[in-house]
Each structure stands twice: as C-alpha cells, then as structure tokens.
C-alpha cells in the first residue's frame, strides 16, 4: 500500500493553498449533518459508525441463524432447500465473524483506545476513515451475492476443492473471496494504525504496564491481525486466480494438494478466533473491577497471559485438521500445543474470579454480562480442551459438538463481552444510560436463550449429529423422548428466545434515545482514563492531556487510601477533576480536518472487485478511482483553512484542524 500520511507543514503555512485547488480543499468541518459523518476522520465518529454497521450485520447474521434453526427444528425441514441452506450457514458465519464481531471490536478499539491512552485521535486519522469505508463496502459487496445469483456456499472455511469453479458454479465464492479481501485491507490498515497509536501516542506517564487492559488486549489483537490477514490474503488470491484466471492451485487433477488451502486458512483462522475473543476479555477486565470496586486481580498476569495467548495461538492451527490426514507426528505436536493454550486462558479465568472475590459487587447489566462470560466461556473453553485431545476430536470434529464449542466461546465469550461493553460504555458514547430494566430482560433472555440453543448442541454432537446438514432424519435420531429430535427442537426454540433477547437490546437503544436519562459524568464510578472527560467526549477528547501516574489513574485521582486504617475515601468527584482539566486546558489543539479521499479510495475497491468478476475494464476503472484517491490523498492540503470551516473556527475554541 502506497498510502503515506503526508508530513504536515507547520500548521500556520499550508503547503498548498486550499482555495486555489477547488475540490482539493479539505471539506468544511461541520459539526452536524451527513457531511460531518461522510468525511469525518474523528476516531469517535468512526467508532460509532463501525458499531452501527456491525450491529446491522449482527441482525443479518442472526436472522440467517434463525432460518437455519427453523429449518432444523423438525426432521426433514422444508424452510430452506439444500442450496439455500448451504449459502445460509456460510454467510451466517462469514457475517458474524467478519462483519459483526471484527468490526464491533474495531468500533470499541477505535473509540476507546485513544481515550484510554489519553490521546486526541489515532495516529493516522484518514487511514482510519479509509478502513471504515473499506469495511462497509466490503460487507455490502459480500452480501450483494445474494441478489446476483446466490451467495457463497462452501462453508466459512471454504475448503478446496469444493470452492472451485466446477463445484461451486455461482459467483457466490467470487464475491466471498473478494469481499473478504476488501474487509481484510480494512483490518490491516486498522491494525497498523492502532498499534502505532498505542505505542507512540500515550499520554505522558502512561507506561505500557499502566495501560488499561482493554487497550492491552485490543493491541494484542491488532498484532494478530497484522500478521494473520496477509495469510488469508494469500489464500484468497490463490482462490481468485483459480476461479477467475484459470490457475489450478487447488485442482487435484493438475496435481494440487487441497491441504494447502487448509493450512493457509487455519494459519489465519486460529489466530482469528483469538482476534474475536481477546477484546471481550479486555472489556470484562475493565467491567469486573469497576463493579467489584477493586482493581483487577493480578493485572500483569492478565496482560502477559493475553500476550501469551496471542503468541501460542500461532502454533496450534492444525487442530482444525486432526482428521485431515496430517500423520501422527504432526497431530501429536499440534494436540499438545493446543492444550498449552488452555493454561494462559485459565490464568484469566482465575484472575477474573479473584477480582470478584472480596469485592463489593454491583450487578448492573454490564456486570451481569461480564460474570456470565466467565462461566459460559469456561464451558466453551473446556469443550475446546476436549477437542484438543486429538483422538477424541476425530469423533467430535464436524459434529454439533464443535458447533456447541464455538458458539459458547463466541456467543458466551465474544458477544457477551461486547454486550457488556455496550452497557458499560453507552453513557460515554452517547451521554445517556441504557435502561437497566430493559437491560435485565435483554440479559436474562440472552443468557437463557443462549444456553437453550447451544447447550443441547453438545448432546447432539456427541450423539453423532454432523454439522452443515441441511436436513436430518428421524432414522438417526435415536429413541426415547430425549432423542436428537427433542434436542434439535429445544435448540430451535432457544434461538427464538435468543432473538427476542437481542431484540430487547435494540428496544433499549430506541427507548434510551427517545427518553433516556442524561448520564452523570461518572455513572459507574469508573477507574480508567476514558471516563476522565465529558459524556460524550469533546472532539478533542481531553481539554488537557492528563499526566498518568497510576494504573487506574482516574480512580486514584478520586480516591485516597488512609494509610493508618487502610480505609478508602473519596477525595474528589469527576466534576472537580474535569473542571480542573478545563482550567488548565491546552492552547492550540490541532485536530485533523475531514477529508474526501478516504471514501473515494475505498469506493474504488468494490469496483475493482466487480470488474475482476464480470469484466476487466470495470476493474481498470476501479483501479483508476484508487489511483485518483491516492493522488487526492497525497496532495490535499494538510489543513482546512479557517474560512472553510463551518461554523467558522472562532479563535476562542482554540481548536485548529490539520492533517
């Protein structure tokens, strides 16, 4: 990628006068209106856009899941035919993983990493905007296949050669491969951006070991993305060259080995599952201490175990291939390596439990989701360990027992963490508290629904029901009342309860938006930096950049320990702290100006992708858009001129915008 942030000239002397370049001037900075979203480079706005888009895709993926469950509720289901069913589970997984959890993580990371490290924005704001648009266009592109002859139908790991042109003749797989390629670019740029932000832009005094755990975990995730995305990129390129340009990478007749795809996919795929879970680990490591009113137990252990998971996660991918015929030596090695990963994960579970221990627990909805995560994730993690035992995995793999495992870790882990984060941070992002009453319905229905849906899948799988079956027959369901037919039905009913539970979240959002109470400055009596500013934060995040002396800096400013009695006393509230920061506010805060080019550049990508599928000239047009975008990007002035700013940047705001 040839995108390079242009070094900014001294803010007072724009390198190129903007007025002379007409369209090339930076767009006027509007506080409101659609333009303020379309051209924004503000990490907070982008975070919200990531989140909203991700939640939309959650509903899409969830409805796909509900259709799957309806089809499987009864034997010989007739809701979907085989073809549609195969598209459904492929797109369900793709949507949930790539279009919901990953961007949802980007949403939180974008919004909160700069706040948690005490920065005013990310390192490369325009690249950040580009990442969002690339993700959005990639996601739309992926789903367009539904309307253009059928979506991808090879399962989310798209094993070769079943993904080849003969076996999957629709364009679904093409859309899938190229769509993921586009969202992959978004992930990669996001990773570079956030790592640089974390390493380079922390507030004075914030050493790495004083960073909030969410920032830590999100950073580990960015490293995983940084190194995992290129691997899937290679795989997807090979697939594309095979499908659209006559190469034979997975064509056995030409001598190819289908296991190559499996390796490439899972070298990416296993780190990917930690990409999905670690941010949620981070979130609940913030939530549990706040509502236990006590610091995270063993902070360094949580941090290092997170890093260790990220590290060891690279050495276990072949546990998805225990039945693929690797040979006993490889199987044994990967089996043992996989078990090793349970150790650092166990450290986390222990630390969370010990954080609760001896605390003063307040069961807000955020806290409930966090506590439920501990237990539900452990269930999923333990079934993971039973897969790690390779010989038993040959009984389990590709059965519903696996489906149970990954939904427990994904839904009970990643998604519960995300919901915990949403309840916790909602007042920060929108200035209003989500209703706890509706939130309780949300939580309990989701918790019950989730166990009813995925709990029985353990039984289904161990009793021999394979996954990815569009239909099941009573002949293999066993006898008695509690046979597989019964459990399938329970799972399907559970998924409806689950959907209703999720629906309550959206109701909550609507109700809150209409008539939610204004949130106090520090509603949870929180501990970390992102709370040391207004709700929602101002455009420049902090009036004055705090100097950090402690882990849990905010808490330490509010509370003091009486050394004699060991008693903890509140010495000042958030209001006082903020007032003081405002008094000492920084002069001349430079904020990046909005820009047209990220969205233009991103728009070129799906055009290229369309062209690769349908006609090369279109791809060339797309390429030209990209080149144009790069040029515009490179030569656009570094700062919007004062006259361009709407409302005119009054000197009193002391906010100057630049690149």
């Amino acid at each position, binding site marked *: 990628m040839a995108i390079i942030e242009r070094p900014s000239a001294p803010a007072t002397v724009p390198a190129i006068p903007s007025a002379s370049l007409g369209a090339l001037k930076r767009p006027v900075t509007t506080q409101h209106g659609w333009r303020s979203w379309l051209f924004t480079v503000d990490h907070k706005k982008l975070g919200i856009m990531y989140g909203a888009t991700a939640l939309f895709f959650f509903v899409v993926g969830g409805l796909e899941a509900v259709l799957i469950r309806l089809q499987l509720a009864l034997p010989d289901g007739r809701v979907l035919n085989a073809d549609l069913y195969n598209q459904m589970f492929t797109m369900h997984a793709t949507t949930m993983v790539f279009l919901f959890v990953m961007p949802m993580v980007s949403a939180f990371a974008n919004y909160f990493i700069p706040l948690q490290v005490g920065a005013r924005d990310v390192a490369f704001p325009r690249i950040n905007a580009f990442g969002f648009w690339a993700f959005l266009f990639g996601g739309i592109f992926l789903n367009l296949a539904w309307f253009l002859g059928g979506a991808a139908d090879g399962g989310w790991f798209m094993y070769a050669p079943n993904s080849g042109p003969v076996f999957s003749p629709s364009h679904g797989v093409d859309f899938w491969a190229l769509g993921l390629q586009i969202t992959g670019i978004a992930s990669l740029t996001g990773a570079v951006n956030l790592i640089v932000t974390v390493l380079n832009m922390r507030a004075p005094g914030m050493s790495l070991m004083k960073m909030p755990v969410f920032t830590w975990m999100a950073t580990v995730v960015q490293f995983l993305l940084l190194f995992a995305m290129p691997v899937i990129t290679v795989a997807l390129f090979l697939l594309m060259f095979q499908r659209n340009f006559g190469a034979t990478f997975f064509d056995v007749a030409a001598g190819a080995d289908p296991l190559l795809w499996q390796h490439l996919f899972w070298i990416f795929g296993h780190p990917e599952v930690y990409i999905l879970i670690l941010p949620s680990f981070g979130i609940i490591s913030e939530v549990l201490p706040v509502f236990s009113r006590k610091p995270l137990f063993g902070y360094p252990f949580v941090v290092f175990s997170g890093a260790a998971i990220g590290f060891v996660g690279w050495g276990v991918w072949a546990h998805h291939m225990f039945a693929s015929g690797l040979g006993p030596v490889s199987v044994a090695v990967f089996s043992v390596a996989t078990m090793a990963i349970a150790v650092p994960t166990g450290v986390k579970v222990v630390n969370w439990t010990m954080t609760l221990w001896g605390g003063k627990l307040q069961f807000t909805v955020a806290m409930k989701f966090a506590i439920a995560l501990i237990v539900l994730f452990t269930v999923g993690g333990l079934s993971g360990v039973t897969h790690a035992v390779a010989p038993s995995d040959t009984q389990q793999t590709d059965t519903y027992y696996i489906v149970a495992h990954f939904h427990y870790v994904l839904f009970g882990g990643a998604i519960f963490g995300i919901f915990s984060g949403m309840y916790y941070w909602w007042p920060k992002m929108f200035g209003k508290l989500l209703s706890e009453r509706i939130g309780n319905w949300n939580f309990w229905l989701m918790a019950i629904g989730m166990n009813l849906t995925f709990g029985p899948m353990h039984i289904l799988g161990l009793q021999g029901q394979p996954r990815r079956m569009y239909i099941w027959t009573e002949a293999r369901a066993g006898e008695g009342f509690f046979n597989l037919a019964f459990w399938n039905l329970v799972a399907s009913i559970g998924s409806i309860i689950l959907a209703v539970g999720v629906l309550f979240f959206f109701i909550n959002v609507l109700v809150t938006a209409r008539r939610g109470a204004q949130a106090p400055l520090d509603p949870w009596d929180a501990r970390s930096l992102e709370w040391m500013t207004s709700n929602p934060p101002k455009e420049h995040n902090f009036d004055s950049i705090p100097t950090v002396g402690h882990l849990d800096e905010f808490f330490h400013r509010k509370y003091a320990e009486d050394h004699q009695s060991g008693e903890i006393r509140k010495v000042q509230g958030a209001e006082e702290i903020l007032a003081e920061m405002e008094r000492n506010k920084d002069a001349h*805060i430079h904020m990046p100006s909005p820009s047209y080019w990220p969205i233009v550049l991103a728009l070129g990508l799906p055009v290229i992708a369309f062209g690769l599928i349908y006609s090369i000239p279109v791809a060339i047009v797309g390429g030209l858009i990209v080149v144009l975008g790069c040029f515009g990007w490179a030569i656009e002035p570094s700062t919007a001129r004062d006259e361009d700013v709407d409302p005119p940047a009054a000197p009193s705001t002391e906010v100057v915008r630049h690149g």
Partner: protein
Amino acid sequence: MAELVQEHGAQHGSTGISNIKLGMWLFLGSECLLFGGLISTYMLYRGRVGEGPTPMQVFDIPFTSVSSFVLLMSSLTMVLAVSAAAKADDRSTVLWLTVTALLGATFVGGQVYEFTAFYNEGLGFSTSLFASSFYVLTGFHGVHVTVGIIMLFALVAMVRRNRIPGSKSETVEMIGLYWHFVDIVWIVIFTLIYLIPV
C-alpha cells in the same frame, strides 16, 4: 504543553519515534507473511510441472542474475537518495531517486521480457502448478516494484515542486524502506526460486 501540539499526522509521538516509520515497519513485518505464503506455495508446487516445461528448462540464470543485480544496485542508489534528502540536498535527491526508479524500471522490464520468453517456451499462466505459482509469486513482487516506481516518480515531482527538503526527507526514507524491502524479497526469491534446482 508544546509537544502535545505534535500529536498527529506524521509527526513524532510521545516516544520520540516517528509514527509513519513505525507504521511502515509494521506493514513490512506483515508483508513477510504475505510473501512467505506465496513463496511456500511455490516451494510446494515447484516440482509439479504437469505436461509443461520444468523450471530448469525455462529459467535463464545469466539473464535473471543481471536483472537481480540491477535491483540490488537500485538499493544503493535509493540509500544515496535518502542520505541526500537528509542533507537537504535536493539536486542529488532528485538525481538518485530518478536513477533508482530507472533501475527499478529496468528490472520490471526484464521481468516482462522474461515472462514473455517463458510464455513462448510454453509456460502459460495456467500450464501447470509450477507455472501458476511462479507467476503469482514473481508477479506479486513485480507489482510491488511497479508501485515503488510510481511512488519514486511522485516523490521526484514532490521534491521538485516545493523545495522543503527537511520535511520531505522522512517521506523519502519511507519509500526507501519499502524499496529495500522489495529488494530483500527478491534476494530470497532469487536464491530459493532460481538458484536451487528442482
């Protein structure tokens, strides 16, 4: 509070490390996995020639040696350009950048010639697994070089248009990093793909 003004864009962060440089190195680290994957694919498939020609039949080692040498030397000119830019010597910067770009173009031209020659010898893109993986690997590398050339020319234009060498020197250095990376990938490709016989 003066240092806080410098929080953004390509400036140096609180650690005194350049954002953009850090970003570039991260990107290059990531590229290792991209080229690693392509190289591994090639290594796995290089012997699978089907009906088509084998590597040893098509490779023209003397020719590729020369073009490898050209690319290697372009690294030298690139580093000279970076060093000139750091000294705010615009004339030399432009000179060395241009030479680098031309050397790169020579390399790409050589690759185009090589591909044509291979094609004429019966090695089409989809002739065999060896062919596909060879073309994809070297093609990806060639695209990287081409992008580098475009960036070099853009850089030349930038340096010539507004002579603010001080602030441009980092940009020159960044493109230099990218360029050298493309070169070291070729160092690996040259040995693993061309010199080691199948």
